[in-house]
């Protein structure tokens, strides 16, 4: 039986939102999530998956069809938005255009009837914390985009929320501003024990901001994990494909527990072997970082894999240079294999190279299509 985790800032249990109930997005099914106090959880998924609807439902701006929402253990499923302890921040900051920066930040305190002294002290502290002290008397229209985000964050903190809901805060920003707002979100959230739930469709934003990441696919939560765990152990082929960066191959499990693929016989980690119990046809995923290549040693001709090593050989077709890494496209039989190479000493196009695969970067899933045929 489900029990409310009282330590969690936010717990969602089997929340469903019917399709079309909200102009902002699709519906979603049976979402359960916990966000711990002080934790930053990023909801990551392609557009149109109902992520925004979920945030709005938590804030009380969109009705839910079933399920329950708890904030700090209190059931707020039927509570009005202003009494949920959850602040929702729109993608583009929504500031009150007739109020100054200080009045905007002080708004949550004003509507709660906080004494003026207390309000001024807290507003000053928040402005200081987000680097807005010099802008206190400005009206929102006189602020830059990044400053507007900072004001919205400061104002949200002034409400002393238990949950902060950020809807794609980085989506519409240019790269420089993006970093600025990312920093602002971190600044705002440190020292706060609010649970932060942030929606994004951008993997880089998710990994840079999230303590944990919840992947949303097909209107459900597909996996909740740290970034590291997501990449090494994606819970499904769909998650693996969504994250990208894996080479996918068909394979057959051999008696030894290794898997035979077009790149040779690859040994699978023990836990992966266990998860495949009973399946012979599998889809193997190889993390890009696990694939390396080596030019032949002097005098050696590469015609066949070296015995005992899980190595294929192939010819370098092209090398693509990027800001972070350089990738050679190596053709092995009819397969084009992307291989990270030393950017300062890339292999020459046309040369034969030996491909090495680190078994720690391997994952495999039952190939449902072929089991069905079998």
């Amino acid at each position: 039986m489900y029990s409310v985790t009282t330590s969690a800032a936010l717990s969602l249990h089997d929340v469903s939102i019917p399709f079309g109930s909200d102009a902002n997005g699709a519906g979603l099914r049976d979402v359960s999530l916990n966000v711990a106090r002080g934790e930053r959880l990023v909801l990551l998924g392609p557009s149109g998956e109902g992520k925004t609807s979920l945030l709005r439902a938590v804030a009380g701006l969109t009705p839910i069809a079933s399920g329950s929402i708890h904030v700090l253990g209190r059931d707020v499923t039927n509570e009005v938005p202003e009494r949920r302890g959850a602040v929702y921040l729109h993608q583009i900051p929504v500031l009150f255009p007739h109020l100054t920066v200080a009045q905007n930040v002080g708004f949550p305190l004003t509507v709660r009837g906080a004494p003026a002294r207390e309000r001024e002290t807290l507003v000053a502290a928040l402005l200081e914390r987000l680097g807005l002290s010099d802008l206190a008397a400005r009206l929102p229209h006189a602020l830059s985009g990044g400053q507007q985000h900072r004001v919205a964050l400061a104002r949200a903190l002034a409400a002393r929320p238990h949950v902060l809901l950020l809807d794609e805060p980085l989506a519409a920003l240019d790269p420089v501003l993006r970093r600025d707002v990312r920093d602002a979100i971190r600044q705002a959230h440190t020292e706060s024990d609010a649970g932060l739930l942030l929606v994004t469709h951008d993997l880089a934003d998710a990994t840079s901001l999230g303590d944990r990441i919840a992947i949303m696919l097909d209107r459900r939560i597909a996996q909740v994990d740290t970034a590291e765990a997501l990449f090494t152990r994606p819970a499904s082929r769909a998650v693996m494909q969504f994250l990208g960066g894996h080479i996918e191959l068909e394979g057959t499990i051999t008696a030894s527990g290794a898997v035979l693929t077009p790149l040779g016989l690859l040994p699978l980690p023990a836990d992966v072997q266990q998860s495949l119990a009973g399946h012979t046809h599998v889809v193997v995923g190889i993390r890009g970082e696990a694939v390396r290549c080596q030019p032949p040693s002097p005098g050696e001709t590469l015609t066949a894999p070296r015995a005992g090593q899980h190595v294929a050989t192939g010819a370098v077709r092209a090398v693509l240079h990027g800001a972070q890494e350089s990738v050679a496209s190596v053709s092995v039989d009819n397969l084009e294999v992307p291989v990270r190479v030393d950017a300062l000493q890339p292999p020459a196009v046309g040369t034969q190279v030996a491909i090495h695969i680190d078994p720690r970067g391997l994952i495999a899933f039952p190939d449902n299509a072929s089991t069905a045929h079998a």
Partner: protein
Amino acid sequence: MRPSRTAGRGARSAPLPLLLALLVALPVLFGAGYAALAVLGVVGAGASGSPSWHRAAALLTDHTTWRGLGWSLYVAGTSTLLATLGAGLVALLFAGNSRHDRLARSVASLPLPVPHLVAAATALFVLGQSGLLARLLHAVGLVDVPADMPPLVYDRAGASLILSLAWKELPFLAVVAFALRSAHGPALDEAARTLGASPIHVARRVAWPLLWRGLMPAVVATFIFAFGSYETAVLLAPVDPAPLPVLTMERFADPDLARRGEAYGLALLALLVAGVAVAAHEWTRARWRMLRQ
């Protein structure tokens, strides 16, 4: 601003557009100039040919001039205030998307094109001493004969005049208010709600402050239209104090040529008020544009 629209001819310099604007305003400027000369007795009926302050002084020291101006300002101000409050209330109450709300918005904007004259004539039929209101009050036993009915028409408080003008101007202000509400969308209200504001707080601290700031230009325009409306005043205002438009029209028709010249002085006074209103209109518009950015 934006690059030139007329790609072929290149950017036009400012003088031409400004000249065009001046051309549109020319009849008013001409009228003001002529009126000034007429008041000085240089041109027009009873002109002596040489300027004199005599007429202007007579006009400015005349008690009825100031009473008329003051009363017209009072009527226009009160009716505009009523219409603004009404329009704001309607816009805040019926902001939603339900059938009720949409019906209310349609009904509120329906009288938009009703001429002032019709509003005034109807006010006579409804608010006059033997009008519909008096008959209704009789039906519930509050009024016995028409003379018992407190005078709402031709009264010094200008009750029927104020109500008629407010009735006529409310739809316009309401239409502007609806547009303002829908332009803001629900995001501001939502933000306020999740920050802890109750619906009442949202109305008081967000919706209303923004509404009246956005309404201000229309309010100023409404005021000046109410101020200048002759037909409403002539049908519903008392003889004393006579509102400025009625006073002006009377002087125009005066057989005494000297008094006819005074009509231009009153017209000049009205134009002066209009000029101030135009400046206020543009100022409030500029301020609102700034907030909207």
